């Protein structure tokens, strides 16, 4: 089966520092894939390359059969990619539900005239957007906070809001950059079950984390990155017993 996301010999350098070095990486449709590696391994950079926020130095990124090389950052969303950020990036001067409503941008169509002149199409679409946004807030448990300012939420809820916003775009793939960091044990458990549910609905998930434990029991396949290179790939069990991986994680021994 063809990969939904494919990075072909991708390299990204920042000046002399090669953050991602000739990496081949792919995510199959319907998978829960994990990308792990110690801090500074290049995971976030690879995610930025996959979503087109950072241009590749060399190599190619192919999403659902088409290359995003040289395309503007908003293009990846039109191919069904959605993501969250390691440092949560909300629209801080907007309310919780407005954040999610912005997430509906990619599947809504009303133009400026329709909105400014309040044409019938505006009202119709607006109702769909509001319904969808409430649905997404409901599934991450933020229904009660819909009208609050996004910036006023505690950190854990901000992370959940960012996920709801990403899901509101009906993505094929959801990419999460260290979604469990800063979450309490209970919140992490809730996140795990949410991610399982999302995959069961047919969304492909790419999970990035430096902490092995969180990803091990929920992912189908794991790729390990170290110093910009792939050092191992396989099932969680295979990766956990891999000598190179244990060496890379020296001191944070997996068990």
């Amino acid at each position, binding site marked *: 089966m063809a990969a939904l996301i494919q990075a072909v010999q991708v390299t990204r350098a920042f000046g002399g520092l090669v953050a991602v070095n000739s990496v081949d990486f792919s995510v199959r449709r319907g998978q829960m894939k994990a990308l792990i590696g110690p801090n500074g391994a290049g995971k976030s950079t690879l995610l930025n390359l996959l979503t087109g926020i950072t241009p590749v130095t060399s190599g190619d990124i192919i999403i659902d059969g088409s290359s995003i090389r040289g395309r503007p*950052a*908003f293009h990846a*969303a039109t191919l069904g990619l959605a993501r969250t*950020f390691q440092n949560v990036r909300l629209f801080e*001067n907007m309310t919780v539900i407005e954040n999610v409503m*912005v997430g509906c*941008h*990619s599947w809504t169509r*009303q133009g400026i005239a329709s909105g400014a002149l309040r044409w019938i199409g505006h009202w119709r679409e*607006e109702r769909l957007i509001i319904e969808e946004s409430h649905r997404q807030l409901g599934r991450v448990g933020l229904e009660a906070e819909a009208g609050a300012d996004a910036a006023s939420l505690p950190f854990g809820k901000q992370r959940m809001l960012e996920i709801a916003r990403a899901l509101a775009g009906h993505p094929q793939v959801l990419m999460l950059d260290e979604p469990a960091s800063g979450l309490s044990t209970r919140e992490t458990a809730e996140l795990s079950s949410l991610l399982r549910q999302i995959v069961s609905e047919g969304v492909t998930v790419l999970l990035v984390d430096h902490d092995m434990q969180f990803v091990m029991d929920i992912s189908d396949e794991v790729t390990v990155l170290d110093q910009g290179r792939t050092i191992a790939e396989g099932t969680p069990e295979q990766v956990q017993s891999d000598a190179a991986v244990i060496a890379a994680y020296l001191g944070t021994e997996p068990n």
Partner: protein
Amino acid sequence: MLRGGKALLVLGLLLLLQLTVDPNHYVSRVLLLSCFSVMLAVSLNIINGYAGQFSIGHAGFYAVGAYTGASLSHFGREWMEASLGLASFPAWLADSAVLLAAVVAGSVAAAVAGFIVGLPSLRLRGDYLAIATLGFGELIRVIFINIDRVGGARGFSIAPINSIFWIGLFTVGIVWLSRNLLNSRQGRALQALRDDETAASVLGINITSYKVMAFVLSAAMAGCAGALYAHFDGYLQPDSFNFIRSIEIIIMVVLGGLGSTTGAVIAAVVLTVLPETLREFADYRMVIYSALLVICMLVRPQGLLGTSEFSWASLRSRGKETGGGLA
């Protein structure tokens, strides 16, 4: 039905004012001048408040609209009278037709200018964009000073068409459009890119085209105000569109609360009425504005209203809440 009712009410009220009030009376003049300020502040708020870009050349778009509208009505009126048979119409109808044509021409010309100025905003940020838009405003003024056909530095005199009805209608219309925009798909996209461009683009928002759209729309509104203003006294001078004018508009937007249309309206009216009514205020206008800005930054950096808006619905629900509390 209710919305249609409100529109009819506004039309009726404006018609009544048009028929009963002397537009050249001192009070009506001050209020009409406030209308121009409202149109300018509300339109600038789309770029600076909604989209978070810092443009300080708004008087330039105002000037483009004013001179384009004035030129059309000055040089084109005869042609319009001949080819459209305007001469046989009642005077108010012929005047309205000419004024509307001027408004359309002024808005389109300003929109084109907005497109041209909007393009650099894709690359420039913050201070750099501010300087570029400032340069644009000054450039426009210098261009008009040097065009003799429109009077150059001496000014440009045309036949005035001072209409409470049309000025009022376009003011209400611009405020309405701008409020609608805020709570629409496009308005949310603007606010999103203001808060975080990267996060917005990842959601599929084409940052480039939205920034240009904000400039074009805002400029068109300022151009509309300009064309109406050109006919208000029938006299234009390049210096009425100088840097100070741009700064006044910004102060209205910032004091009212960046992003709040209601705030922009209130600040525009207050800051127009005060200098017109208090001589002392007029003399020390810029000093007082600066002081107000500094105080505002210290005491209430989000401006008078922050980003909140006035609405009858919220007023009603607030009334209910207090009512419930009492009961």
